[in-house]
């Protein structure tokens, strides 16, 4: 076979931030018409490496070749001129602009005037590549998958021959992912070189031709996908053998701890976010909540924690009504909520404060006298650091200096330390690598064995199917059904998430989410 020229080649790339080496001597190459998966755990330097291609960072040393010629990429503009386009994990779009204007904005040839034809030009161009976008639609009205499509159209419009996608499937449903992969295959057939960053092994195996693996900033190897399997890739990625099974211990379940009936909640804009939702959680079970991002998960968590007022419905905890109680009172009942937002620091932690201070967050008021009891806080911080193997210089380190996994461990560690009987946790493994994720699953399973009821709002369906006992699927705030995790499939969940399948009235005598041994009848009002 004739040796084909690489569309892009990186040789011996090094990059460090301060004393931290993010990339050490990395080699990578892609041929035109090839999909390369860049695989690695979080913090292994994938995004840093790609940001050097897109001109956001400059390598400290090493060289980059495009079509066999050595180039220096000093700015995103250089990168664009070389035909490199990157779809970032967090979309770079102007919310209040239309789709067409977002593309027009970065086009140097378009001139200073917003021409009327831009809608047609962009529509035609998108059609040509086989995309269906409405050029007049404003970005804030778009679903996540539409925004992603727009990002891809944008880089294609700028004439990119090399397309980099940073964790593109993290926000998509299974059906949307399939559609994205079709698009990628089509682009590949047209001779584009594609690099896709991911840490989902099944996707790597499905879409890529070759896989380049990084670990802790170092180049490990590049293998042909055809000759690889999940177990081997994981070993490359983690550096040792890893058990890929998530446990699902069977525990005696109690009567429902938390019951939600006909709950309706509005979001910040006043639209209905959660619509007449019913569900219940027993002690010793994990109830998963699946749904496309922004389907009311956040509002549901906030309502349970008392942070958001509800429109109507009942929330019964151990037979006590908790509607209208203050966050503090709900906390005191043993309901713990931890929500990991996209920036991972927004809720539940004070990022500039020390681990000690963050441990005290929910109990600083219990100390006698006017002073904060930092001694207890420090002892607890030490305990949690030890129990959960948190990597930190000291208990007094500000939380924002810790890496993502450790931040989440601090949060979860504090919540568990408080000895809750209901844990509401949303995206607890968001952005974590395999090891840290498994550590978190272990923590949750341990709590489950101790008889705690857990509401697990998640993103990764594979994980939810393995970890949860039951899964409730939300679509636009409505319950599409509650299914047993060991009896369902990803495809079924995906259909429910998009609203194509409604199992909420599968059993006619009993709508989904209403317990047979409900305690609602014994409900009594409690004083705050």
């Amino acid at each position: 076979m004739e040796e084909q020229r690489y569309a892009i080649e990186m040789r011996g790339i090094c990059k460090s931030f301060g004393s931290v080496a993010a990339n050490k001597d990395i080699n990578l190459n892609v041929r035109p018409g090839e999909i390369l998966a860049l695989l690695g755990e979080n913090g292994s330097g994938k995004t840093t490496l790609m940001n050097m291609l897109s001109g956001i960072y400059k390598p400290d040393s090493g060289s980059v070749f495009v079509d066999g010629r050595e180039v220096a990429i000093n700015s995103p503009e250089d990168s664009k001129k070389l035909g490199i386009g990157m779809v970032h994990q967090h979309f770079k779009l102007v919310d209040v602009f239309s789709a067409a204007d977002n593309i027009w904005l970065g086009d140097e040839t378009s001139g200073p005037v917003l021409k009327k034809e831009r809608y047609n030009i962009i529509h035609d161009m998108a059609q040509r590549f086989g995309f269906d976008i409405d050029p007049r639609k404003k970005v804030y009205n778009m679903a996540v998958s539409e925004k992603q499509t727009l990002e891809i159209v944008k880089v294609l419009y700028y004439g990119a021959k090399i397309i980099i996608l940073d964790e593109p499937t993290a926000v998509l449903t299974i059906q949307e992912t399939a559609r994205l992969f079709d698009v990628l295959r089509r682009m590949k057939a047209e001779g584009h070189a594609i690099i896709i960053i991911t840490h989902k092994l099944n996707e790597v195996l499905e879409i890529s031709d070759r896989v380049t693996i990084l670990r802790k900033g170092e180049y490990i190897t590049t293998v042909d996908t055809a000759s690889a399997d999940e177990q081997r890739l994981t070993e490359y990625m983690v550096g040792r053998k890893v058990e890929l099974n998530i446990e699902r211990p069977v525990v005696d379940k109690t009567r429902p701890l938390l019951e939600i009936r006909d709950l309706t909640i509005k979001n910040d804009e006043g639209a209905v976010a959660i619509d007449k939702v019913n569900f219940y959680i027993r002690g010793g079970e994990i109830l998963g909540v699946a749904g496309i991002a922004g389907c009311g998960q956040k509002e549901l968590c906030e309502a349970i924690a008392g942070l958001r007022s509800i429109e109507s419905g009942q929330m019964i905890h151990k037979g006590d009504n908790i509607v209208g109680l203050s966050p503090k009172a709900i906390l005191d009942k043993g309901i713990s909520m931890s929500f990991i937002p996209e920036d991972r620091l927004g809720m539940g932690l004070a990022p500039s404060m020390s681990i000690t201070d963050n441990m005290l967050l929910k109990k600083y008021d219990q100390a006698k006298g006017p002073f904060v009891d930092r001694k207890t806080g420090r002892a607890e911080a030490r305990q949690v650091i030890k129990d959960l193997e948190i990597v930190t210089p000291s208990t007094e380190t500000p939380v924002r200096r810790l890496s993502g996994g450790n931040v989440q461990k601090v949060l979860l560690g504090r919540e568990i330390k408080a000895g809750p009987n209901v844990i509401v946790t949303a995206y607890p493994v968001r952005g974590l690598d395999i090891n840290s994720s498994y550590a978190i699953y272990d923590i949750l399973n341990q709590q489950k064995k101790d008889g705690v009821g857990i509401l697990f709002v998640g993103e990764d369906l594979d994980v939810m199917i393995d970890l949860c006992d039951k899964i409730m699927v939300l679509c636009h705030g409505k319950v599409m059904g509650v299914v047993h995790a060991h009896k369902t499939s990803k495809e079924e969940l995906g259909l429910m998430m998009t609203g194509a399948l409604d199992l909420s009235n599968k059993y006619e005598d009993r709508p989904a989410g209403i317990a047979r041994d409900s305690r609602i009848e014994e409900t009594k009002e409690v004083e705050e």
Partner: protein
Amino acid sequence: MKNRQPLFHVVKRDQAGPGRQLLAYVAAVVLALAVGAMLLSVQDVEPVTFYRQMLTMGIPGSRYPWRAVENFIRLFVPLLIVSLALALAFKMRFWNIGGEGQFIIGAICAGWAAMKLGESLPRPLVVVLMALCGALGGGLYGVFVAALKVRFGTNETLLTLMLNYVALYILQFFAETKADWNFFLDLESARPKFAKFPDNAQMLTIPIGPFNLNLSLVAAVVLCVLIFVYLNYTKRGYEIAVVGDSPNTARYAGMKVGKIIIRTIFLSAALIGMAGAFHVSSAGILSASVTNDVGWTGVVVAWLAKLNTVGIVVASLLITVLQFGCQTASTTYPSIDANFANLLQGVILFIVLAADFFTRFKLVTRSKTGKEAAK
């Protein structure tokens, strides 16, 4: 494409130790003084002698050195208290730039207490009542903004800024309106003119030899300690830090964020009002320029000190030395006036900010990266 490289790029440093940071600040001050020296030379003023006079504040060789110290304290105390109070609000990320207004309202309220009660009550009681009135007036003036923010989400920066002018014009109204009800004015004077306070409204002093120690300095030192403890060790201080860091987290931890904001801003504004009261009580008279820009300078001091209590003491001392020193030194040099202090202050702030940048980042030049790349 040409292999073009930028001249240098910015690289993040590892965390700098406190020693390095301190060194950077000292260097910044020295550098600012050097810039000032150049400006002085241009105006044919010998910088060394000027700086010597400025830094010693004309105390050596003076016939009444204690007088200079007393005047220095009068400038220092309001600045120290206002800076501390602002730091309290800034720590909560509440951008109170209404120090001027709160200070004026505090001064007016204290003036009211002085004129109405000064004749009839004993001196210690009048002074304390003046301080309390000033605190209450300033505090309520600040709480107004905090309440609007909590209730309607208004922007505190704009509101506190605009209320400064409201307060200023209220004061001017009292200063210029000759009327029977206006008890602030001197009845004997034909022109409108503020009356001197009754003797019982003069700030208490502790005589140490010929030197009279202004009691407000003692109060300010006590306040420093109290605020340090309040911010760093009490539950209320903890709440302020959490609300400042992440209001969502605070709410989620069961804190009543609105209540905390209102309480803290009342405290901050009340302290500023009290500083106003101390100031007029020490001066013994109201004046239209009562604030001496302390509400603005306080913002500078609080930021120079990074909201750190000890830092605030140091920075407000430094700034007062600059201002008071320039004032005294300028009596010998007609071409230099007190504005030179403001200029130096600006240069210092600017250079300290730059020094801050260089403690966190470093510049790597093209030739160096080029060599590394060639390896």
